[in-house]
């Protein structure tokens, strides 16, 4: 059974409709497939590198081929210069600690600055000054991260004569603030004007309306922006290479060089030993899980606050 139609264009229309839908599906697949492959590969290869030592130990030099790591004695019948036989030891605890300290410090400073700037951009009347700030944010968030690294290097490292965790945090603040400000602005603009007016009509001053009505309404979106900024900051390598430099030991001193997971990934993937290359996948895995974990945690908390 089918409906009769005298619509001459009908066959063509339905063909075009199907073709367009097909295109969107193919494009989505092209976007998604590499992502899924990358994540699966990191999960499989990186997951295999994980063990207790990986989370509890810091860097230890690899054991040369042909030596039993426990006894320190040569193993019989093994080639001494076979790179594939070199065994990795130690873990990345210093990297996890470094990444958390540097990124969270940066986030603590970026959140108030970014959110307040976003409120200024969204809630106060448009002036040329606003347009200028918005333009700066866009340029800054699009700037190559190595540029931010160089800025951090010249501004902090050269002046203080030392690489330090703080220098890394400051470089990340430059990256995070524009992202947070712009996402906050966009999300606040989605709050219906009627909501603002309802608050103002009760005789609420601007700050009260903004802080207790408008911002809570947009909270989920603002949190998403903060998370994106955190994820970006945690995954940045270039600015950190030039500011915190890296450290093979566990360090809690923000005034001295620190380790970070992306730097360890970079270092291990450059290593000539296949066993250390595997550690690189492990750090990538941990970094991904870290971002995912923080994401889940924050989402659950905001969902709870909303209720």
């Amino acid at each position, binding site marked *: 059974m089918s409906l009769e139609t005298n619509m001459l264009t009908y066959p063509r229309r339905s063909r075009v409709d199907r073709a367009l839908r097909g295109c969107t599906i193919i494009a989505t697949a092209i976007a998604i497939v590499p992502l899924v492959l990358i994540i699966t590969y990191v999960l499989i290869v990186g997951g295999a590198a994980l063990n207790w030592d990986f989370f509890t130990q810091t860097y230890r030099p690899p054991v040369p081929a042909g030596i039993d790591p426990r006894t320190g004695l040569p193993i019989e019948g093994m080639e001494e210069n076979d790179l594939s036989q070199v065994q990795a030891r130690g873990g990345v605890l210093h990297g996890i600690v470094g990444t958390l300290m540097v990124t969270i410090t940066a986030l603590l400073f970026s959140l108030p600055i970014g959110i307040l700037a976003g409120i200024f951009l969204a809630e106060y009347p448009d002036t040329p000054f606003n347009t200028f700030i918005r333009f700066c944010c866009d340029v800054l968030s699009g700037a190559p991260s190595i540029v931010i690294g160089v800025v951090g290097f010249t501004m902090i490292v050269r002046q203080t004569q030392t690489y330090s965790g703080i220098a890394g945090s400051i470089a990340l603040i430059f990256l995070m603030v524009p992202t947070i400000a712009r996402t906050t602005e966009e999300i606040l603009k989605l709050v219906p004007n009627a909501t603002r007016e309802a*608050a*103002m*009509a009760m005789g609420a001053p601007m700050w009260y309306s903004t802080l207790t009505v408008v911002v809570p309404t947009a909270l989920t979106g603002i949190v998403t922006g903060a998370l994106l900024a955190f994820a970006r900051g945690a995954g940045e390598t270039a600015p950190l290479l030039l500011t915190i430099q890296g450290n093979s030991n566990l360090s809690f001193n923000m005034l001295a060089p620190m380790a970070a997971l992306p730097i360890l990934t970079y270092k291990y993937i450059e290593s000539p030993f296949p066993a250390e290359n595997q550690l690189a996948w492990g750090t990538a895995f941990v970094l991904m899980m870290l971002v995912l974990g923080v994401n889940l945690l924050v989402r659950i908390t905001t969902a709870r606050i909303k209720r």
Partner: protein
Amino acid sequence: MAVAIQPTVATQTAHSMTVRGLKPFYGKRLAVQALDLDVRPNQIMALIGPSGCGKSTVLRCLNRMHELVPYARAEGLVKLDNIDIYAPGIDPALVRRKIGMVFQLPIALRTRNIYENVAVGLRLGGIKNKAELDARVEKALRDAHLWDEVKDKLHLSGMALSGGQQQRLSIARTIAVEPDIILFDEPCSALDPIATLRIEELLLSLRQRYTIVIVTHNMQQAARISDRTAVFMVEKTDDIPVGVLIEEGPTEQIFSTPQDPRTEDYISGRVG
């Protein structure tokens, strides 16, 4: 005038408004020609007219909501009792507290539950005592004819209510702070006929304690509930539409023997 609006203890005396030579602007464009209006105590004044005639703009000038629109401003004299609300040194936030407003779309603040939707204005006013808050919230909800429907679910989100209930919740929020005047901007245009009827009953009961100005598209509504009616029209000068107040008088007279032929055309459905 250096007289600031002082926070006062709520009284039962009703208040009036006087408008002289009010000219609302959007940027450089004059929205409504200079108009005079007297809002009398314990009365409901209806502002009616076709779309674009500036009746909502005039209403928003009465509690300084108009100037919240970018580049909008108003000239002229608007007095609450004998205080010029546009005088320098007058805080618009305090004006809005004295002259409350209910909007076209019911607004339940989505981050607050039903109780807090009403309590928000009271908390803003500095009331912290739980017992007093409870009593004031209950009274406002009763006065808004909503208490019986929500008394068992005060902790639920305001978004869980129907459109008509949300509008009564907005009214409860507005009357909780005991304003002098309440402005209604087409409060029923998003509601079904039964919800509309309930709001109209509510308006009539509120008139005993408050002075009310209502903008409505619904002429029958104006005829049913208002004491006086002001009719607005759009006039074109140099092809630029400007709103103008063409007639104001007792509602009965406006609807039975209008002075201006355009009023007659409008209320009999030939214009607008």
